């Protein structure tokens, strides 16, 4: 068989079911073989968008996502999303077609290895036909082990060579069979010493805790220690059924949560990296002693220090050991879990700051509340990027089947595409996207892709017709004309209809309720162009740019 056939077989053996990308000279033979093997191909309008779909797919499914781009210009389009995926620590394998090996004059020539390095992406270069299986295995092994994007770059001429290996492909998962890491008893003992002396502990949970399935154990530990429970942004709403759940730790925390965090004398981080965003460079927890549980060998926190007690362990196992040790000591305290704190938490997510609305617009906070209430939990939520998502990130609190946040690399334009990937990863179950107008317009053509593949996505465009971050910063800083950040849009609901889906323009809350009810009753690709008032400042922006105690 040909090398491209072997490569396709190897991808299938790795468990690949969905591939996102755009066909070109340097990947078309491989894609054709994937199709023969029953793998679903999603033809997109921009290679970077396809990669973002694979990113959303992988972050939802957990297995490596797969995307493809053809040589040179196709690969070059991947730059932003490769960096996003790197920062998000998403396991991805990108099949990058490549010009003929050694042809320096190729019109689509690109040094794809250096390109990948600049994009924080691992690189596997297939330069000998006989290495085809090893190359695929290495790419998937690295993606799974390092949880980051890996580019498998294959020159066109190598793809057409003969591959005569009769051996069965050995998937990378066989190399990675690992048992969970048990905690060192000495570290558990140190942690128990800290917890025993604490009066106001906070448990921060992250993706590591979710992956470990440590929810029930964490809630038990919170009860025992009197801890409030907070999440990282990526774990938003996880364990929110706990009555002392305070939401996100970081800039997207409520004011109530921030006040409680600053009184904490102990932080127990479970599968949470405690980066600078989660702890606000450490300022959120000025008096706390840190215990951190992570399956990585070690983690440096966002304030540049190591935790006071680091427990290298699977999250669930370590929390179980902590609970057992506390029970052996008959340790139990109310801590933060008091009626007074519960009373404060009851109104923690209220935002009653008064603003006068622009004519013909709605308050973005009302939009978040209405959608959170009207859309059932079986419908997933994807939060895009940019200033507008500050509203939904704080104010939407319903626990949902699936929730995906996009704030990596600080870019906009990833919302729609990651939502489409997340929908694909969940057998086309519906999800809605909260996105700004600038971010949505960046990859508007992919809405047509969603229509083409029947993806039941509801796009809620929080449309202030601004580059919102820049507008509000210009207002706050002075000296810059804020109107330079005004960018008008057409009626995006009508655009949705023109692209084959549904959509409407929303300028009042009754129209919003009607439109959402229509989508919930029959989820099909839909755009709601919700015109929001520029006068309403989100809570994070009130803090950062206007110095308000929000």
């Amino acid at each position, binding site marked *: 068989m040909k090398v491209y056939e072997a490569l396709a077989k190897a991808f299938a053996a790795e468990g690949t079911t969905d591939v996102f990308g755009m066909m070109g000279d340097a990947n078309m033979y491989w894609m054709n073989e994937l199709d023969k093997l029953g793998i679903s191909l999603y033809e997109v309008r921009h290679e970077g968008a396809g990669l973002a779909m694979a990113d959303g797919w992988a972050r939802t499914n957990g297995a490596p996502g797969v995307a493809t781009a053809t040589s040179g210009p196709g690969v070059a389009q991947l730059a932003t999303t490769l960096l996003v995926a790197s920062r998000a620590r998403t396991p991805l394998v990108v099949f990058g077609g490549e010009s003929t090996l050694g042809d320096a004059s190729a019109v689509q020539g690109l040094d794809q290895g250096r390109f990948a390095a600049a994009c924080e992406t691992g690189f596997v270069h297939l330069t000998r036909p006989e290495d085809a299986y090893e190359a695929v295995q290495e790419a998937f092994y690295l993606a799974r082990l390092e949880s980051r994007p890996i580019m498998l770059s294959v020159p066109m001429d190598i793809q057409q060579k003969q591959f005569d290996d009769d051996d069965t492909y050995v998937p990378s998962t066989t190399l990675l069979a690992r048992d969970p890491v048990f905690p060192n008893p000495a570290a558990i003992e140190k942690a128990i010493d*800290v917890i025993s002396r604490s009066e106001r502990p906070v448990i921060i949970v992250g993706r590591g805790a979710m992956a470990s399935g440590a929810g029930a154990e964490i809630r038990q530990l919170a009860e025992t220690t009197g801890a409030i429970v907070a999440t990282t942004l990526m774990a938003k709403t996880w364990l929110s059924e706990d009555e002392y759940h305070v939401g996100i730790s970081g800039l997207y925390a409520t*004011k109530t949560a*921030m*006040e409680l965090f*600053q*009184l904490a*004398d102990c932080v127990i981080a479970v599968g949470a990296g405690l980066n*600078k965003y989660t702890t*606000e*460079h*450490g*300022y*959120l927890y*000025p*008096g*706390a*002693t840190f215990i951190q549980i992570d399956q990585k060998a070690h983690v440096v926190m966002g*304030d*540049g220090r190591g935790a*006071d007690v680091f427990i290298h362990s699977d999250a669930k196992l370590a929390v179980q050991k902590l609970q057992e040790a506390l029970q052996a000591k008959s340790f139990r305290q109310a801590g933060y879990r*008091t009626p*007074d*704190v519960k009373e*404060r938490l009851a109104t923690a997510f209220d935002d009653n700051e008064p603003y006068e609305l622009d004519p013909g617009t709605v308050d973005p906070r009302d939009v978040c509340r209405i959608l959170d209430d009207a859309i059932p939990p079986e419908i997933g939520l994807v939060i895009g990027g940019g200033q507008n998502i500050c509203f939904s990130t704080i104010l939407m609190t319903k626990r949902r089947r699936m929730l995906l946040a996009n704030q990596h690399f600080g870019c906009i334009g990833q919302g729609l595409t990651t939502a489409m990937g997340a929908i694909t990863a969940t057998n086309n179950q519906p999800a809605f996207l909260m996105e700004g107008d600038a971010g949505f317009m960046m990859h508007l053509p992919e809405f047509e892709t969603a229509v083409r593949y029947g993806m039941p996505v509801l796009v809620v465009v929080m449309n202030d017709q601004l580059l919102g971050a820049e507008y509000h*910063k210009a207002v*706050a*800083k002075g000296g810059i004309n804020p109107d330079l950040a005004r960018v008008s849009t057409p009626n995006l609901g009508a655009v949705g209809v023109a692209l084959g889906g549904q959509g409407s323009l929303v300028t009042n809350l009754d129209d919003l309720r009607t439109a959402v009810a229509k989508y919930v009753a029959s989820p099909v690709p839909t755009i709601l162009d919700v015109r929001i008032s520029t006068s309403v400042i989100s809570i994070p922006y*009130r*803090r*950062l*740019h*206007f*110095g*308000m*105690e*929000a």
Partner: protein
Amino acid sequence: MIKIDESISLPVPKAQVWKVLSDPHAVVSCINGAEIVKENEDGSYDGRLVVQFGPLRVGFGAHVTLELDEAESQGRIAARGKDQHGATRMSTHALFTVLPDPGDQSTTVTLVGEVELAGKLASQMEAGANTVVRRMTTEFTANFVALCAPDLVQEKPPTRWQRIRLALRRLFGGSGRPATVEPASRPS
């Protein structure tokens, strides 16, 4: 760099104003969240200041010098320090001038200076830091007026700090002193 440019009119004679301004303890008492913790032999002071950035309260330690020139009715105040994590550095210098109005029954104090923040908090707060400094300057002015001319000031609603302490007392009992003012030390 955050600019300070304030002018305060006080309906009291210059000597009364100068007396307050030349007393470091009195001046510090006008800055909400500030205190002198040590008087050094060279005449400088070690101080502490808790600043509210949004809902965050950040404690700074600072070395403070005050140079008075009574003949010119001027004073220079300089403070340099960092927060408890050493992640943000703060540098402030300001010149105040005390000028009697005609008749010497009232006085004008001008305060001109700069505050510079560098480090993690500075990038975090961006434009918000300007607002914080403006708010602190306004609070200082109000407190200073109350100290120089107490008869002019009616009973005021509780300050931000009083409200916070009340809330903490309600939550946990005790003194209600915010834990962030004196964070617990971390074990080595």
